């Protein structure tokens, strides 16, 4: 049996995927939100379900109001699964549906998920979304569904995968060509669409990748990092 871990391990050690989000660029335009839905077959919840807090957004734009008129300020922050290095959502899953891949992804095996939602409760970023019902697309909206991504059924937990289908696609190409994935070769859907280039994706194991360089910025911080979750996403503060 081949060690599972070796599968994606290129020469020089496995990848460690990560992201940098520059809040000085992000404008809250939400192109990323729709791009993610389109890529990942994220269900349409509808008004009724959304009003019960059951709308699914693998990536969402959080807004923060500060101050009062005329000094009111509004700040935006894209929030998606942080692919925590020490993920609180993983050990609580009784059936190991939530687990960590060797290349640093927090993965969810849908057909193993039994829907107890412990992971969702334990995620401090509230980025896990539960499918309360089977998804539904009024025909022919379903024709758009991406065949590379599973349609999740009711009772299953889901969340951002860093667009793993795109990662695996690029890795296979690189593997066939006997090389490592090049920096910038993989763009998750949100990253690809973002008009202001606020989102950057890459390999944290490669010291020369844009992600590795950007995350050393003095503006860098990680979300709720005091919890010890070791997020794979570094945010860059809005500059003054």
């Amino acid at each position, binding site marked *: 049996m081949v060690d599972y871990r070796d599968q994606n391990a290129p020469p020089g050690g496995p990848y460690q995927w990560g992201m940098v989000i520059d809040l000085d660029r992000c404008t809250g335009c939400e192109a990323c939100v729709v791009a993610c839905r*389109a890529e990942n077959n994220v269900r349409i919840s509808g008004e009724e379900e959304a009003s019960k807090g059951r709308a699914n957004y693998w990536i969402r*734009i959080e807004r923060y109001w500060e101050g009062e008129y005329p000094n009111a300020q509004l700040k935006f922050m894209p929030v998606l699964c942080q692919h925590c290095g020490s993920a609180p959502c993983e050990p609580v899953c009784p059936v190991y549906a939530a687990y960590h891949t060797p290349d640093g992804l927090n993965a969810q095996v849908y057909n193993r998920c039994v829907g107890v939602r412990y992971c969702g409760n334990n995620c401090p970023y509230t980025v896990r979304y539960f499918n309360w019902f089977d998804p539904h697309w009024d025909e022919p909206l379903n024709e758009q569904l991406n065949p590379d991504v599973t349609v999740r059924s009711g009772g299953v937990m889901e969340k951002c995968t860093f667009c*793993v289908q795109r990662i695996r696609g690029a890795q296979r190409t690189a593997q066939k060509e006997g090389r490592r994935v090049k920096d910038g070769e993989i763009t998750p859907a949100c990253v690809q669409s973002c008009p202001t280039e606020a989102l950057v994706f890459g390999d944290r194991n490669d010291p020369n990748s844009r992600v590795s360089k950007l995350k050393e910025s003095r503006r860098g911080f990680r979300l709720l990092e005091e919890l010890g979750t070791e997020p794979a996403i570094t945010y860059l503060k809005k500059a003054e």
Partner: protein
Amino acid sequence: MDLKRRDFLKVLGVTAAGSLLPGCAGETKKLIPYVIPDEEIIPGVADWYASVCRECDAGCGILVRVMEGRAKKVEGNPAHPVNRGKLCAKGQASLQGLYNPDRIQEPLQREGARGEGRFRPISWEDGISRWVSTLEKYPGGAVMISRPVPGTLSRLFSTFMKEISGRLLFYDPSGEGTLQAANRRSFGVDRFPEYDIANATYLLSFGTPFLSDWLSPVHYGLAYGEMRQGRPAVRGRFVQIEPRLSMTAASADRWVPLRPGTEGLLALGIGQVILKEGRVRLAQGDRSRFEKLYGTVSLDQIAAKTEVPREEIIRLAREFSEAAAPLAIGGGTASSQTNGTNTLMAVNALNLLVGNLGESGGIRFIEPLQGFPAAAATPVSDQALLNLKDSFKNKKRSLLMLYQSNPLYTLPPSTHFGEVFDQAAFTVSFSSFMDESTAMADLILPDHFFLEAWGDFLSDGGTPAAGLGQPVVIPRNNTRPVGDLFLSAAKRIGGNIEKQLPWTDFRTMLEDQWKTFLAREVPGQPFEIAWIERLQQGGWWKPEQRLISVSRRPLPESIESAQFEGDEKQFPFYLTLFESMGLQRGEGANRPWLQELPDPATTVVWGSWVEINPRTARQYGIQEREIVRVISPYGEVEAPVIFFPGNRPDLISMPLGQGHTAYGRYAKGRGVNPVILLAPLVDRDSGTLAMGATRVRIERTGRRGKPVLVDQTGEGTRRSPEGRRRSET
């Protein structure tokens, strides 16, 4: 937690399942696909087709991912100069236009009374004959209202309408008519320049929603990112001046609220200080005319009228004139008043004062594409549309044709534009969706969706480009390209019009235009090869841009004040209506992805709301989510209240885009269309609807509404973006 598959097996002790698991080399073929977790699915093979996005009028280049004949995903075309690989929410959602369950699937003929909404399918042959016979019955009686379609379709429409002595009006509801008029006066140029935001070091924006819906949002989004963090040592600063803290204002370093309609006056004050303090870049002898303009009002008066403190005006003036590359832009709330053009001219004057015309980081006019045969589609003013009422009333015109225009929804009822529909002897719509105006038609000859059709799109402004679109999927329904319809009508009418439009179908006409064009641009290359290359590239654009210089530089003669409708005592509030990211002016309302796209400031989805400053709301005793009635001299709407700390206390704001009475299952009967509140006031110089010129009052209903907020942070647990927990303010 690093869980290897082997460990997993050990944990569960299910050794027999081993061969079923992926990761065991050579065994994967035997797997039931559904048992493979997503992270191990091998992505299928896709084809990519280049085209042009038609979800707004920016003309971004797109690449569409197609698998097994179905369009799966739209991405920006990295080669296209307008959007360089990027795309906005609306572009992403264009697939829900293509696969919309409520598309009109075949030609329809009205049954029952007009507007009753009963239609019966007819054959294409019958449909076209009915249309053509009406054209022949009312010679010179046809009016066509079309969305702007710069490119071959524009040439086809204009030739056709000219030959039948009809009238063609390009109508753009979110039209930048004021900006067009102001630039025409300030610079003598009828096109939009490139506002070089990317290279500016100080951006002073008067109400311009350039990060959401102004001119070319993706283009300017890219530029904004570069302005902030794209240069090694420089971070451009940005101040937004407007009465409501919009989504664009949220990104600014400083938001300066002011009284609606006084933006021009504020620009005057800023210019005055700059002139006095001497930090100007003016040609010799040019100073006196600026002195004349800026000497008209005192700074204290300006501070009092704009309600921007004197110190703030001086600060803005200093920051602006001391910057290495200052840039002033105006639009949105600043231009949607009765003095809109005048205001934007005053903003232009600031640029003239610091001499940034043609400079890096300033206003640059780029040489347009030459030689594309008669393809412009300049929008007319709202006033021109309203003037149609007379020509229909006195029977000068009798036949109304509509192409992707929905004036019955976008124009306020106070304009009585509906009279045109009432007076028209016959109305034909070529739209793909049953919008409010199409629902009033007598005959519907539905077009393909743009992803099913051939087309081109000329973008202008900062990035002259001819985008080229091809069918990326086989048409789903019994629809026909609108171009084909017009060419076949020309054939049936015969005579001169047939001579002018000899093509058998739109694709041939399109290819012919490009043949002429490419023969000039890439001489020597055989057309067949050039054409394929262009289709793969998604169009044609020059590798580099050439600037053109601008000679006319007049200043506004004086600063006009804005006129408002509604007595201040009876209607104490100003009203701002804004376009939301997804729904625009209602066009996006039939796409569920856009309905479920949270408003970035309030997180509301699937509905309408009223934004009120929390202090004002408390004065009225209004609770958040309570339904209020917003009343203007022209109408009233009801919607739930969301507290909005970014509103002036005397300002009510509401999103545009909902309140459809037609337009399919996702749009119809949802929320309210606040346009019905508006007075029929237009900007004096350009005839553009003055969306901000109506005053309103509010009344409590005592009922609790159910706006749907998808705020994950929740009240009381809001964190600051830096990750620290903080109690709510």
